[in-house]
């Protein structure tokens, strides 16, 4: 199958590969997918005191489109507030990477990974974080 240039670029030169310490309070970790389905994504965000995502890392087991989708969202979430990051839609990812219909599930997985990472961060910080976000 033919891949778009953007997919190939992210696949050849993935951005922000790696891991943060899961136990770090400023880190939110999202792990989605299953080996049985052929893809697993781990997305981590590092959130500043102001509730803005300072940095992101990913690791992905999956096809080229899955790797590209997760690489792309690590770039997109940086500098965004948590609610902004959580509102990224898979259709935006699919459009940016020109994913064919059979690869749409990769963009859905990337959207889920962001939501899971944000959720994990919020869980760590309880209610006061939500309150802080509202104030901001």
């Amino acid at each position, binding site marked *: 199958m033919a891949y778009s240039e953007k997919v190939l670029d992210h696949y050849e030169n993935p951005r922000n590969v790696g*891991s943060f310490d899961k136990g770090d309070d400023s880190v939110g970790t999202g792990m989605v997918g*299953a*080996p049985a389905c052929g893809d*697993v994504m781990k997305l981590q965000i590092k959130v500043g005191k102001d509730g803005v995502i300072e940095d992101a890392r990913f690791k*992905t*087991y999956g*096809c*080229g489109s899955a*790797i590209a989708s997760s690489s792309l969202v690590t770039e997109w979430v940086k500098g965004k507030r948590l609610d902004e990051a959580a509102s990224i839609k898979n259709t935006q990812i699919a459009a940016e990477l020109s994913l064919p219909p059979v690869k749409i599930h990769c963009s859905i997985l990337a959207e889920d990974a962001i939501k899971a990472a944000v959720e994990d961060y919020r869980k760590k910080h309880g209610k006061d974080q939500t309150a802080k976000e509202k104030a901001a």
Partner: protein
Amino acid sequence: MKFPIYLDYSATTRVDPRVAQKMIPFLTEHYGNPASRSHAFGWKTEEAVEEARAHVAALVRCDEKDLVWTSGATESINLALKGAAEFYKTKGKHLVTVKTEHKATLDTMRELERRGFEVTYVEVQPDGLLDLTKLESSLRKDTILVSVMYVNNEIGVIQDIPAIGEMCRKRGILFHVDAAQATGKLDIDLQALKVDLMSLTAHKTYGPKGVGALYVRRKPRVRLEAQMHGGGHERGLRSGTLATHQIAGMGEAFRLAKLEMAAENERVRAMRDKLMAGMKQMEEVFVNGDLARRVPHNLNLSFNFVEGESLIMAVKDIAVSSGSACTSASLEPSYVLRALGRSDELAHSSIRFTLGRFTTQEEVDYTVNHLRTKVEKLRDLSPLWEMHKDGIDLSTVQWAAH
């Protein structure tokens, strides 16, 4: 070295230039219809067709009169299975095959089920080989036919065709063998084997695509109901004007196979073993299927914690095939590897390397180095590899399936 490197010989082979040379005159010069009995054009091509038939017969050691030309293995299999089932349906309605067969067999069996036959799909052992007692216990009083492939197309394992032949003949059950992947790799002796029907194709053995043959034993006689009707060619079993140039090509390809097989297999085996030794230097690399009872040109490996499609993408300089069908619309891993009981991860992480006549030592060395670099890169990207390195047993993880 020319790129991409071709290591997909089980998908198809290059037509040997000597074979192509043999074919060309039958397109432009000797273009007569071999069924034309009234002039020299027909006599010439009829002679060529019979010469080719003799070469094919010589490779599998059968009587040349027992061979019927077809368009390839898929057609041969269809004719054998549907033809025998329809002819012998008053004798019984039960057929037996194996879960790891090629789709040409499995889909034909499904069609026969639709027509009212009952089919048993026997499981294989984790090494890909049949447990013969299990096969035997699947046979019934009303079983009319058993179909088993000689060499598996994905993992290259060789089934015990002589023993299965004895088992079937003793019970008066017809035995069909799909030998598409076996010609030129194994000594096939239809004089000794208790095989009643055997499907052959040219394009896996350096012949052209679009031609094959079906061996139909005459002693003891096997009857088939024709699936193609028309001019009554090929003893009425397969009507249609013979594709003379294709047939001449298959004959030449099989003649060369007989001459060169022994030396070629040893050369290919040495390269395959070198390829394997190089790959096994990496951690968590597994061979799929039994290694000893396997054709010399096949190596099917799972690179644990790396997904197959991304690996194929990484090795785009090398033409190989993945056991993971992610490239199609379905996300199912190979049904053959699943039948071996391989985990989803391993099934998704597999690559089939098949070497052949034109593979060079240099290409094998390049492949080893290239694969090692790429697997390492993809493992650095893989959360599963990270978890494995942290000592987490992935089978204990609760995944959110999607």
